[in-house]
Structure formats: C-alpha cells, structure tokens
C-alpha cells in the first residue's frame, strides 16, 4: 500500500495511480457539503444555475463541523456517514468532482461512477474530529449560511490524512463481515 502526497485540484493522473488501501496526505482547497447542501447543489443544477464552487477537480468533504472557538479556524471536523450522499454523488462525479471524503459504505451506483468518471472515495477516521481539525488551516462559508453546520465551507487543508476506500479501478478497502466465523451461516 503506497503513500501519496496530493495537491488539489485533482486530475485523472492523480486518481488513476490510487489503489484501495493507499494512504493520501491531501493539501489544498476542499469543500464541505452534507445532506442539505447536496440537495441544494442538485436543485441548482436542475435549474441550470451556477454552483458556489467549481466542480472540476474538486474534493467534497462530508462534514458538518462544530463551531469555531475563538482563535481557531474551525471546530471539530471529522467525516459524517457517506451513504446519505449516494443519491447525489454520481451526478457530481459526472460533472468533474474527483473525490469525496467520508466514512462508511457506498452504493454500487457510486462505485460505478468512480470507474466511469475517474474518481475516488476517501475515508477519514470517524470520531477523530479534534485531530482532523488540526489539518485545517482556514475555513470560510461560501454558500447556504442559513444551514448552519450544513453550510458549504471552503477549507484549506494541509497534509489531511486519508485512506483510499474505493478506487477508480473497482478496488475496495472495506472488509466483508465474516458471517461464518460469527456463527451466522
């Protein structure tokens, strides 16, 4: 399992070299969006209106951070569970989004979209919100401020620690439960 240092925006060459299980340190600009923001993004697309950020080469982080205490750019900022964004993710990948960051399983449709559009799904450690926030050096709300924790934020990250969960070649890191060993079969 290889280690890579990547800089945003990501391109096809960056994605193609990644394999499930690889460790990535990501530096650059990423965008936060979770449930409500994804719905708003897709509503804008339906209406043919511009999005608040450029999807080309983008990385979307599924997170609703806690409020920034005085002197910090952001509060705790670990990943939320990704499957809730499965409905929206293939469309965003088809429009140039190169990666999402979250935790937990993705649907077959998302895995197929990663292959079709040369994209990747990264996992970050769930429940390590304080630790991950240390890799975020700047944060500003760029859309949907009224959504509070669900607003879209532009984050500057330095060496953000990620694992490749689903790669663009069909590879997956998550293990299947051993049902037999547990006495289920």
């Amino acid at each position, binding site marked *: 399992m290889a280690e890579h240092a990547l800089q945003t925006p990501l391109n096809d060459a960056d994605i193609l070299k990644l394999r499930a299980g690889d460790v990535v340190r990501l530096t650059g600009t990423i965008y936060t969006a979770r449930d409500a923001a994804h719905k708003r993004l897709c509503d804008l697309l339906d209406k043919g209106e511009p999005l608040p950020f450029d999807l080309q080469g983008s990385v979307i982080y599924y997170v609703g951070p806690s409020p920034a205490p005085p002197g910090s750019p952001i509060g705790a900022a670990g990943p939320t569970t990704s499957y809730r964004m499965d409905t929206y993710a293939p469309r965003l990948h088809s429009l140039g989004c190169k990666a999402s960051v979250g935790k937990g*399983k993705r649907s077959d449709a998302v895995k197929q979209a990663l292959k079709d559009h040369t994209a990747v799904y990264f996992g970050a450690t*769930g429940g390590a919100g304080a630790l991950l926030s240390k890799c975020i050096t700047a944060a500003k709300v760029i859309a949907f401020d009224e959504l509070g924790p669900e607003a879209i934020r532009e984050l500057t990250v330095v060496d953000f620690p990620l694992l490749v969960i689903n790669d663009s070649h069909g590879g997956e890191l998550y293990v299947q*439960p051993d049902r037999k060993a547990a006495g289920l079969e």
Partner: protein
Amino acid sequence: MRTIDASQIIDTVARMCIDSNRYLPTDVRDSFARSAAREESPAAREVFRQLTENYELAEQTGLPLCQDTGLAVFFVDVGEDLRVAGMNIREAINEGVRKGYAEGYLRKSACDPLTRANTKDNTPAVIHFDIVPGDKLKIAFMAKGGGSENMSRVTMLAPAQGWPGIRKFVLERVAEAGPNPCPPTIVGIGIGGTFDYAPILAKKALLRKLDDVNPDPKLAAMETELLEALNKLGIGPMGLGGKTTCLGVKIAMSPCHIASLPLAVNIQCHSSRHREVEL
C-alpha cells in the same frame, strides 16, 4: 421536602454537555488501549492511535472529541421529596442544553424532521423521567451521535425465536451496519417491554461502564457470548478489518406480553460520551 433552585440544574446540565463532549470516559480510553494491544493489523492499530491522539487533543484544546456533539439525551431520576424552584425541570434541562451547547462551541444538530430547519440551540432534549424515593435529583446525560443512531433497529420477534433469534438479529444488524456507525461500537440491547420500551432499555444500558459486569449472571453470560461472536465478524476499527468490531455489549431486560418478544439494538459509536451527576 427539599428544594433546589432551577439555576443549579441549568448550570449542572450545561457543564455536563461541555465536559461529556470534551473528556472521553476513562473506561472507554482503557478499552482502546486493551483493544489496540490485541490487534495485529497495522490499519486497526493506526485507528486506535488516532483515536487516542484525538481524545488527548480534545482534552488539551477544549475542542469536542467529535463534530457530531449529539442530540442531548437524558435519564432523570426525580426524588419524590424534591421540589425545583423557579422553573419546570424539563425546561431547566433544556435551558442547560442551550447554555452548554452555546458556551462549549458544540454543534447544534437538532432539526425539524421534514423541513430540516435547524432549531439552532440543540433543543428539545430527549428526556426520560422516573420518580424515585428520596430527595435527590440524578441526571444522566448522553451526547448521542446520528451516525450510530441511524444503524440502530427495533423489531418484534416471535416468542418462539427466543435467544437464538435475538442473537441472530443483533449479529445481522452489526454485520449490515459494517463501517457506517464508527466501529468499534458499543451495542445496547433492550429485550422485552413493549415496542416503545425496548429501545429505552437499550439506550439506558449504554450508560453502563464498559468494564462493569451485569449483576444478572444470565445476562452477563449473554453479553459475553454476543461480544465474542460480534468480534468474530472481523469488521474491525472503522471497518478496516481487525479483532475489535465492538468494545462492549450491554443488555437490559424487562417482562413483556405473552404474545411478544420486543428487541431493540441501539448502536453507540466508539466516542461514547455520557456522564451522571446527583444533586
């Protein structure tokens, strides 16, 4: 009749909200260390290393352990010889939640189920009251995250399914949840009661310490058996594979209808944030 002022409840609850989200309980920390020592996979060990660094950092910086600082869930035992002056107890607890979540820079996660409009102060809290003998007020607080709550289930088994049916349902649930609820998890199980009471039993069971032993030897044996089986699933920390899928199983049981076998599985992520105070 003893009287306490509502302001005491407000301040206590606010402190509980902040401290629970900042300081991971010792029993959970200890279970990370024990589990990490057993893991052979570098990925599993790395997760425990990050989680350990995370709780140390939260303690040092005051940042919450996790950005999901939970819906505020309370179990409150009100002594029948206790009177609260100045405000209704429920309102005082909600006021404490408002104060704690604002002053602690905690995330406000409560929203309207349909419009999804945020209530902006993390209220209303979910509060389970009980009336008990005496003149004390015992407040147990849990910051319950949404990711693990989403993986929880209630079912009404047929009485004939018995323990094998319960065991199978719990194992299937944890297997299906896989990496989603932030394993290693703690599994709270409520057996019996009614459709609504079983999950309350399951949630209350999650307040127990990880290293305690169920006082009922039969339930203690069931907890041990299930924990062992669950960890054989091999899902591991964050679903990356390993020996630690669950840190603990806590079972509570209550008599049920002759026609029923209610079962609730309440999944708690590794960031098991709760504490108890007596006033």
